[in-house]
């Protein structure tokens, strides 16, 4: 049986975060102190397999990466809603008085999610090889 308030359980987690970040900073600092420095112009250039650097890496990149990030935000929010439902699922028959109430509720919800995936799929956002103008 726990003999201390529940919120205390988060304290070690917090300490762990601080210790882990501190360890990371300590390693960076140590490596900077210990590592021998014999830098030269060529060494400090961006690495491009030995040839002289051509421009920088601040150019444009495929819009698909942006689309994937956006889709992730949409679908991840939907996925997060599943967790509280899953935690309480086996209590729902008692709470609602109907045996499959919780199940059908989630089927309706998942139905919307699946329609969303189907739309994105047919729109061609998930096909990385096809090159369509409307993307």
């Amino acid at each position, binding site marked *: 049986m726990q003999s201390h308030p529940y919120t205390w359980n988060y304290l070690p987690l917090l300490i762990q975060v601080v210790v882990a970040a501190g360890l990371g900073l300590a390693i960076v600092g140590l490596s900077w102190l210990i590592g021998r420095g014999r830098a030269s112009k060529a060494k400090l250039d961006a690495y491009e397999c030995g040839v002289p650097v051509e421009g920088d890496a601040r150019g444009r990149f495929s819009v698909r990466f942006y689309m994937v990030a956006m889709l992730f935000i949409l679908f*991840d929010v939907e996925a997060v809603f599943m967790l509280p439902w899953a935690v309480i699922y086996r209590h729902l028959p008692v709470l609602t008085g109907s045996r499959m109430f919780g199940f059908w509720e989630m089927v309706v919800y998942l139905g919307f999610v699946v329609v969303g995936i189907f739309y994105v799929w047919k729109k061609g956002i998930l096909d990385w090889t096809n090159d369509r103008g409307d993307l």
Partner: protein
Amino acid sequence: MNFWWFLLLSIIKIAVVLVILLTAVAYTVLLERKVVGRIQNRWGPSRVGPFGLLQPLADGLKLFLKEDLLPTAVYKPLYILAPVIALACALTSIAVVPFGADIKFKGVDLFQIANVNIGLLVILAVTSVGVYGIALSGWSSNNKYSLLGALRSSAQLVSYELALGLSLVGVVLRAGSLNLRTIVDVQATHGALSWNIFGGFQIVAFFVYLTAAYAETNRTPFDLPEAESELTAGYHTEYSSMKFAMFFMSEYANMITVSCVATLLFLGGWSSPFGHLFPSFGPVIDAILPVFWFVAKVFFFLFVYIWVRGTLPRFRYDQLMGFGWKVLLPVAIANIVVTSLWLGFTRPL
């Protein structure tokens, strides 16, 4: 109970766990080099110490002594911060992992740093933040290879995180809790038969999780972000010395965390595969045996990781994204529907 006792014991636990974790990281690297060596019909490291056992030490020392370059084109604050973020996230999530039976010493958990009710959620959250380490390192390096590696990696991580998160819902449905101890206790009633992978009928979710987890940790066959044949080293091309090693360490620490979570959620955590057949062996053995089972299962997963790396070729990028969205995600959703239907009919509380 006394607050300062609690604090002191927590700090001792954190220190011990971090030392063990970092040692495990070092020796997982050695294990990988050894096993991949044998798969490729060679010996692997064998010169430093007996069986090459001191190799990790030599490597660590070498990396510390290497020149710590700070290229002129990089955006310095983020360039320095990125490996710290990656390593801190990788080392944090182990805090909620229970690695032994629920044994208390003066009211403090002996085999878990922080026993919180939302343990699973904490792991998902912390590993999500780890994406920042990779994305920021690639962007701040101002190098084309780094940028491409980071973009690929970020897109891959967020895509597979969906399938990963959804594959866990079946497990949560069965346990009715996000607490990792409760999830294991549900699986400990009839030995291996009640593990989620068998008795919970979560074998599909298990494979979805394992596949997504390989992608999450940037491991073969999903190691596109560091595909050396096209991107030299991906997001850490510009990093040298220990800053490079920190990305390396965080990758292996993440592998260990993922293996721990797979063990806890699908293979019954620290419960013995035939534990229900035997009564207690006395308090000391009852405390040590679960830890042994836990470590054995984690080791099994790590071995599979290395085995897969030694066996499978790399995906092509469009195949990778297609697989995550068009196969794993629908399968994970179908698994939720089937599991909830099954539980609704058989196991209402």
